[in-house]
C-alpha cells in the first residue's frame, strides 16, 4: 500500500508539468531548424545560429512549410541546393552503410562474446 501511495505522489508531481500544447506547427518548424546546418557558422544548426544566412534559411523553410511541402521534401530541397552536408541526419545509402551498420555490428559482436562467457550455452 505504501508503495502505491508513494507512486501516486510521484505521479502527481510529474503531472504538474502537464500543459496542453497547440504549438504543433512551431514544433515541426523548430525540428526542421535543428536539423539543418548553417553554412556561415558551421558548427551550429540554423536554429542556434544568429547569422544572416541562418535567418534567411529559416524564412525559406517557413515559406515552404506554408506552401504545403512536407518535412522530407524540405530536406530534399536543401540537400539538392547545398549538398548532403546541410542535413544533420545522414541518409542511408552506399556512402553510409558503414556509418549505420558498424555500431549495430559491434553490438551483435559484443553480444556474441558475452554469450560465450555466460553459462547459458551448454556444449
Amino acid at each position, binding site marked *: 500500500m505504501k508503495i502505491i501511495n508513494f507512486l501516486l505522489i510521484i505521479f502527481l508531481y510529474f503531472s504538474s508539468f502537464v500543459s*496542453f500544447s497547440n504549438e504543433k506547427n*512551431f514544433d515541426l518548424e523548430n525540428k526542421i531548424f535543428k536539423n539543418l546546418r548553417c553554412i556561415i557558422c558551421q*558548427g551550429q544548426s540554423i536554429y*542556434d545560429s544568429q547569422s544572416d544566412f541562418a535567418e534567411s534559411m529559416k524564412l525559406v523553410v517557413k515559406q515552404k512549410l506554408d506552401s504545403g511541402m512536407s518535412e522530407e521534401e524540405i530536406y530534399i530541397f536543401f540537400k539538392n541546393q547545398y549538398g*548532403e552536408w546541410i542535413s*544533420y541526419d545522414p541518409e542511408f545509402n552506399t556512402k553510409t552503410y558503414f556509418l549505420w551498420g558498424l555500431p*549495430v555490428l559491434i*553490438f551483435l559482436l559484443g553480444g556474441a*562474446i558475452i554469450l560465450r562467457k*555466460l553459462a547459458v550455452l551448454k556444449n
Partner: protein
Amino acid sequence: MIFNYIGNYSLIISVIISLTIFFLSISNLQKINIQKKINLNKLNFFQFFFVLVSFFSLVVLFVLSEFSNITVFNNSHTTKPLFYKISGTWGNHEGSLLLWLLILTLCLFIYYLSSKSRPVKERLLTLIFQEVIIIGFLIFLIKTSNPFNQIFPIPKEGLGLNPILQDPILAIHPPVLYLGYVSTSIIFSSSLASLVQGNINSLWAKHIKKWIFASWIFLTVGILLGSIWAYYELGWGGFWFWDPVENISLMPWLSLTALLHCILVLEKRSLLSSWTIILSISTFTLSVCGTFLVRSGILNSVHTFANDPERGLFILIFLFILVLLSLIIYFLFEKNLKTNNYKFNLFTKESSILINNWFVMYFLSVILIGTIYPIFLEVLSDQKISVGPPFFNKLLIPFLIPFLIFMSIGPNLKWIKNKNFGNKIQLLIFFILNLTMSFFIFNMFGTITLTSTILLAASFYLFFITFKDLIKKDYKNISQAISHFGFSLLILSILMNSILSKEIIANLKVGEEIKFMESTIKFKKVENSSRSNFKSLVGFFEINSKDNKKFLFKPEIRIYNQPQVITSEADIKTNFFKDKFFVINLVKGEDYFNIRYQEKPLMIWIWLSTILIAIGGSVSFLKRYEK
C-alpha cells in the same frame, strides 16, 4: 620580461628532471637500490615543482598584462577583470597544454607517494611509462606550443579574450576536466606496468580503484560544468548538441564508466583481467585522441582551439606511438594474465556488469563512429556529410530501454550465484505500474511514439527501483545506490524535459505583445547603458500567466568593442519545477527584436542529478567498511 625566461627555463629544467627520472627508473629496474628510491620521490616533486613554477610564471604574465609574451598578447586585454586574466592562462592552446603538464606531473608525484604498497618493479615501470607520456608532452609543448615566445616591439594592448569565454563556470571547466583526463594516464601506466609484472589481480584492482573513481568523478563534474555553461551562456537553452568536441569529452567518460564497473569485478572475483587492461588503454587513448581532435583543426566545431595542422600531426604521431607500444606490450605480456574459461552464471552481479559493459561499449562506438566517420568518408571518397543529433538519437535511444531495465535488475543481484531471485513479483508489479503510468502521461499530452512510452516506463522503473535501494539504508552499497539513483534521475529529467519543453519565437517591437499558451508576453521597454567594456541593451518583458501572476524578464544584449562581438545574455528564472528562459536578439537593420521564450521543466534536476552521480562516487572514498 623576466617571467618569460623563468617560465621557459623551468620547463627545460623539468625536461632534464623527467629524463633523469626516466633513466634512473630504468637502471633501478635492474638493480634495486633503496637509496635511489627515496631520490625518486624528490625528483618527482621537483619535476612537478618546476612545471608549477612555469605555470605560475604564465599566470603572472597574464595578470600583469605583459604583452611581450605572444600568448598573453593573443589572449588578454588590460581591461579584463583580474579573475579572467588568471583564467585566461588556460583559456588558450599553449596555456591549457601547460595545465595538462602540471596535472600530469602532479598525478605522478601523488601516485608514487601513494603506491608504497605495490611491488617496487611495478612502481618503477609505472614511472617509466608515465615519463614517456610526460616527456612527449613536454617536447610537444616546448617545440610547437611554447607559451613563452616573445614579440618585439612590445604591443601596448592585447587582442583580448572572447567575452563569451569570460564566465566563472567556463573558467573552472578546463582544470576540472583535465584533472579527469590526465589522471587516466596513471591508470594507463599502472595497468601496463602491472601487466608486465604479472600483477593484475584483486590487490592491484583495489589499489587502482581509487584512481579510477577519482578520475571518473572529475570527468563527470567537468562535463557537467561544460553543459551548464552552454545552457546559461550560449543563448538557446540547449545543454548538449552532439558537437564533435562534446562527443570527444563523453567518450573517455563512457570508457571510464565501463572500467569502473570492471574493476569491481576484478577486485571481488578476480575476473575480466584482460578486458580491464584493454579498457585502461582505451580510456587514456580516447583522452589523448580528444586532445588531438580538438587542437588539430581536423574537425568542424564551435569549440575547437586555434587550428594548426602541424600541432595536430605531432599529437597524432605521439598518440600513434603510445597506442602502438601499449598494444605491443599487451600482446607480449598477455600470457601473464590468469585467464580461465570461467563461465558466468546468468543472474549474478558479474554478468550484469558484463552486460553493462556491453551496452556502454556500444554507446561509445556509436558516438565514436558518428564523430569520426565524416573524416573518413571525406578522405576516402571526397564527399562531405554531416552526422548530428538525429543519428545519435536513432541509434542510442532504442538501446537505452534495455539498458535501463538491466540497470534496474543488475545491481541487486549477488556475486557468483543468485540463490533466490526473490522479489520477482514485486519487480513485475513495479514494471506494470510503470507502463500504465507512462501510458497515461502520454495520453494526456496526446503525443508521441511507442518507443518514447516504453522509454519513459523504463526510466521510471529504474527511478523507483534505485530510490527504493537508496532509502533501504544499506551502507555497504550506499555509493552505488546514490550514483545509480542519480543516473536514473538524470535520464528521467532529460526525457521529461525534452518532451514537455515549450517555446515561442517571434519578432516584437517595443510596446507589442504576443500570446503564448495561456499567457501574454508584453514587450515593455528597452534600456541602454554603458559598462566598462561593453554597451548594454536590456529588454523589459512582462509575462502575465493565466492565474494573474506577473513575471518580469530582463534579457540583455551586450555589444563589446574589443573584440567586436555581440552576445545575448538570457534571463533565466529557475525553480525546482521548471526553468523559464528568455532571450532577445538584435535584427540587423530593423526596429524590432527577435525574442525567444522557453519553458523547460525539470531543468535543474538535470544538473542536480549529475552532481548526485559524482557524490555517489565520492562517497566510495569515505567507505569505512569492507565487504
